[in-house]
């Protein structure tokens, strides 16, 4: 019973806050399923248009060599400030949420559709992308999620779609410019079919042509950019994608193509594999992948049904330590275990730690997103840094924490008694707390 509550709170959650496992224990599967229907938390951060304004302000400041925006003598960096506010809001959301499964899904799909601040111009957009393009759709239809993510300004910018012109479009015929395949290729390879999903270079070109037109439609010269569909960039004519004719139809072609891709069995398999790897095991059991893929196809890509299907997998409830927490999951789970309010979090410190642990927020190294296997996160040096983090946090909170309660509310259900005695017998309280956080029972989920 409590073992299942532990798995529910960690495998499917962000680590238990005090009292969470007790609440989950009555019926862990039902409690998780209920989390799927939790509303998305409100946000007071700028929407996409607001973030684009800020991006433009930053760009204009750089262009003009201006550092101090408000004349207070201190340099301003509005794009970076927005990024920090987004990181703080995300951290707070994850630490405080009573529907952690929903946040986990947001993190999963945000990683699936990576836009990374590794490209500097994405800095002010990554947060709003996750809040507006990802979060509203994580329990909706995959097709809608795909559309929202692939056509969001952050993605159009990140994957160079703004530089793509149909060679035979109105603009393309005038200028020496052409197709940029980047977004089309990544949608096929990463977002939908998967690299072995049965497409070829002709399909990449076809999708890239279909997508021509999605770009900046106004702004520039100091005005904030607005994104949308510009028919003057669109490659005219019918296209052939995966053997299916997509009839000439301007912006509408994209919807047809996304519908085709979202319902494709390769997409079902690709998404099922990633989901099962994320929620069950590094090497996803074939039978579980089959079930989730079939469920996906049967429901037309209903992500609520698919998520509920993951909860229903027996394999998900077997090994409580099948996965290593990512650095973000680790840091959040420590804050949750300490019942941190999340509000006055020392974000620069959190950021510094996440960088040291190899996972700066919104900063995946490539469009493929963060990796999802233990070997990617648990190198020797990384483990030492994780232990260092445990020790550092323990010293900071040491005298405010009841070690016995911390153990009960985190690792006790799955930790053998002799180990618990080792921790309880630590030479000082801070070491005891550090041992809880460094324990494999805490580092894995």
């Amino acid at each position, binding site marked *: 019973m409590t073992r299942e509550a532990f798995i529910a709170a960690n495998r499917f959650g962000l680590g238990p806050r005090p009292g969470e496992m007790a609440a989950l224990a009555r019926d862990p599967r039902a409690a998780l399923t209920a989390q799927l229907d939790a509303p998305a938390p409100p946000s007071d951060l700028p929407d996409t248009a607001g973030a684009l304004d800020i991006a433009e302000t930053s760009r204009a400041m750089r262009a003009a060599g201006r550092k101090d925006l408000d004349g207070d003598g201190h340099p301003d960096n509005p794009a970076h400030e927005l990024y920090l506010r987004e990181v703080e809001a995300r951290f707070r959301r994850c630490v405080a949420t009573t529907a952690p499964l929903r946040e986990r899904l947001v993190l999963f799909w945000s990683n699936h559709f990576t836009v990374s601040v590794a490209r500097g111009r994405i800095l002010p957009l990554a947060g709003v992308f996750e809040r507006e393009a990802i979060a509203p759709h994580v329990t909706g239809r995959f097709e809608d999620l795909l559309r929202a993510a692939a056509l969001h300004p952050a993605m159009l910018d990140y994957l160079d779609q703004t530089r793509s012109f149909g060679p035979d479009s109105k603009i393309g015929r005038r200028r020496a410019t052409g197709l940029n395949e980047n977004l089309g290729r990544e949608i096929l390879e990463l977002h939908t079919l998967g690299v072995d999903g049965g497409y070829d270079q002709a399909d990449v070109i076809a999708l890239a042509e279909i997508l021509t037109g999605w770009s900046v439609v106004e702004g520039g010269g100091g005005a904030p950019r607005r994104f949308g569909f510009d028919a003057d960039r669109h490659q005219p004519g019918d296209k052939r994608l995966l053997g299916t004719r997509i009839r000439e139809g301007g912006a509408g072609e994209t919807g047809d193509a996304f519908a085709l891709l979202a319902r494709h069995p390769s997409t079902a398999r690709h998404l099922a594999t990633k989901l099962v790897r994320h929620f069950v095991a590094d090497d996803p059991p074939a039978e579980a992948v089959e079930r989730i893929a079939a469920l996906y196809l049967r429901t037309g890509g209903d992500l609520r049904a698919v998520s509920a299907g993951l909860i229903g997998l027996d394999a998900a409830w077997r090994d409580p*330590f099948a996965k290593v927490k990512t650095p973000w999951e680790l840091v959040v789970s420590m804050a949750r275990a300490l019942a941190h309010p999340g509000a006055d979090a020392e974000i620069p410190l959190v950021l510094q*730690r996440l960088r040291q642990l190899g996972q700066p927020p919104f900063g995946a190294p490539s469009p493929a997103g963060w990796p999802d296997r233990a070997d990617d996160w648990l190198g*020797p040096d990384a483990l030492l840094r994780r232990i260092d983090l445990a020790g550092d946090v323990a010293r900071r909170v040491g*005298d405010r924490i009841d070690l016995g309660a911390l153990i009960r509310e985190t690792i006790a259900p799955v930790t053998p008694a002799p*180990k618990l005695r080792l921790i309880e*017998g630590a030479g*000082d*309280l801070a070491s005891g707390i*550090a041992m809880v956080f460094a324990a494999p029972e805490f580092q894995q989920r």
Partner: protein
Amino acid sequence: MDIRIDRRDLLLGLLGSGLAVTAPRVAYARVPDDRRFIFILLRGGMDGLSAVPPVGDRDYAALRGALAIAPVGKADGALGLDDRFGLHPALAPIHGLWSKGELAIVHAAATPYRERSHFDAQNVLETGGNAPSHDGIGWLNRAIGLMRQDGAPRGRDLGLAVNEAAPLVMAGPARVATWAGPGGGAPPTDYLLDAVDRLYADSPRFHAALATARDTRALLAASEDGMAGKEPGQSRLIPVFGGLATLMRAEGGPRIATLEVTGWDTHTGQGAVMGKFGKLLGQFADALAELRRGLGPAWARTVVVAATEFGRTAVPNGTGGTDHGTAGAAFVLGGAVAGGRMIADWPGLSPQRLYQGRDLAPTTDLRGVFAGVLRDHLGLPAADIRRQIFSDAADLAFVPGLTRG
């Protein structure tokens, strides 16, 4: 305000950014004149029978077995103190203080606590009561509160809090400054890594990764220390003790400070001369020597007391270590100490004299040592110490003559 900022800069500059993990916490206060007092908490239960071995006790060698320190004059033998006691060889850096009269050792000493929990024992050591207290006030904080009443308010000078809280012994209503190294950057202590590694015994992935990481780190440390001409591991505590010394030496610097040294909980692989215990003790001794060097002329006005929450079992356990015990040893050192002597009502180590048949029996109340220093070094009235600092301790026997007054 300015003073605070200067101090903070001084601290950060002195102590660098890489010391957070091993850095003992520093909290400081001022007293009305130029006397200095430093209280060092040896957390984890330091083995007094190894640190200050009673090599002249006829039961010692047999009782301690593999953990026994050889007599004075033998190979790896104790450093001579008097005809009964010696110092662990790792304490060589402070042995010279004994003949100078700047080191006194209290033995068979304990707080009133007689159970075996680290946390409760540390609580009693720090609050100065008869049992664990939850009012969150340490005895040294109460003492500072009394000093404050004597002179002009100096609260302004106490205000330094970088990030961590004062240890319990310093915590309470009298405002004290705290410092702790900036977080991050420094590697975890060997003590924590040993402890964590025990948790990894059943997790091959974690155990292997940690072992590899530690090997790498040892190699790096060896090459760095080699370049600096130091023994590996020697430098662990030195920068913090040295930094504190520089601060306390300064005219406007703190006059009362606490430090913590952790890692004394030697349940396994304790060793006699070599081993976990000897290594840590050596680092501690090096750090004390650095403290003395750093204090310079201020050393003459300084008393340092280093005490632990309890001693360890007299007989080694089955894993080459010792378990939580009762009485142990405490160090009193400094230029203001009337040293060169043992303060011990030695109970002996014969089986019938051991506490509960397993521990060195307590014969001196550690609070009497603290009270003696507060009275004779810091000039607090004995009546105030009895009434307001150690009010639980009826008939507390002040250890007399600890300082040169």
